[in-house]
């Protein structure tokens, strides 16, 4: 279909085009809800089966990094919302600025995630043949706090007492951890790619108060990714902190 200005040929009016895009995006997000839903169900059942292993696994995560990432991501949602606002009142420079901020925050989130993954890799907590839940306490690094290691050791031995097959079950936790955060990160990467495109369009001055649909749509997507994290954070990091 041919495009005349901002209007694609299959549509009669801009209004219709905008409505269609918005509905399309929401419908797509509903698909995403069920896509992640499958993982959430797997998570729920296994956590119900193996509370001890999930608690232990969760406590190996770095709450500071997780918390930091939560703040970063919510902040990026704010800047995204602000760029939608800026584009709808015609503030072109600010639109671009907020988009760039969003992109930077998103990249920061991914950077922190890389650090976290690296830690897990070093501690042999990546599922596979080398997985070993007590690797860290068996092979403490020189700069590890001995007290912390002691505490972790005790926690682990209690957990082993409750669940002799702790290693396998903790591996399930980490499979889910990597599955869920990995899929989430993949969505972030796709989002970041779209942001790059948006920033370029915005710099070219494509968006006006009558036509800012792409900013709004990618905004919706970005907020959705934020929501997924809002659930992942307590479900993965905060299972058993009150020990």
């Amino acid at each position: 279909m041919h495009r005349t200005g901002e209007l694609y040929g299959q549509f009669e009016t801009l209004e219709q085009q905008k409505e269609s895009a918005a509905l399309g995006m929401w419908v797509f997000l509903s698909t995403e809800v069920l896509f992640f839903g499958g993982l959430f169900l797997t998570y729920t059942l296994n956590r119900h089966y193996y509370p001890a292993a999930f608690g232990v696994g969760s406590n190996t995560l770095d709450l500071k990094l997780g918390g930091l990432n939560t703040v970063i991501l919510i902040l990026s949602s704010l800047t995204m919302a602000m760029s939608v606002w800026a584009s709808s009142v015609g503030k072109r420079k600010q639109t671009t600025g907020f988009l760039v901020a969003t992109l930077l925050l998103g990249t920061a989130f991914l950077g922190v995630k890389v650090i976290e993954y690296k830690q897990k890799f070093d501690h042999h907590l990546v599922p596979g043949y080398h997985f070993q839940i007590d690797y860290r306490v068996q092979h403490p690094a020189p700069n590890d706090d001995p007290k912390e290691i002691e505490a972790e050791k005790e926690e682990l031995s209690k957990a082993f007492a409750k669940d002799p097959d702790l290693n396998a079950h903790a591996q399930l936790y980490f499979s889910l951890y990597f599955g869920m955060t990995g899929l989430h990160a993949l969505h972030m990467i796709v989002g970041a790619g779209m942001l790059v495109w948006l920033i370029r369009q915005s710099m070219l001055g494509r968006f006006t108060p009558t036509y800012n649909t792409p900013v709004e749509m990618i905004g919706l997507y970005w907020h959705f990714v934020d929501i997924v994290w809002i659930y992942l954070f307590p479900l993965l990091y905060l299972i058993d902190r009150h020990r």
Partner: protein
Amino acid sequence: MSEHIVSPKVYIGIFLSLMVLTAATVAAAYVNLGPFNIVIALAIASLKATLVVLYFMHARYSPKRTHMVIIAAVFWLAIMLALTLSDYVTRDRDLASNTQLTGMLGS
């Protein structure tokens, strides 16, 4: 759709509430409430998600159709979780480790 333009003030207000709720959820996790820990964590997360959907995503100002899509997504997710778990929570306990059988396994 959203001819309604939300002012930045609202956005900042929502952002601050989200921060407070994040702090709350971490704090709550350090208190032992037994089975209620997970309930509280999920309740706070859902509250946060609702704020994001209503304000950041403008659902509050969107047509009914959008609301229906959102409700459908949540409802279907609920079906999947609830009906599947209904099987597990009402199961007869497995005969756990029946020694006679485990003895036969792998022999």
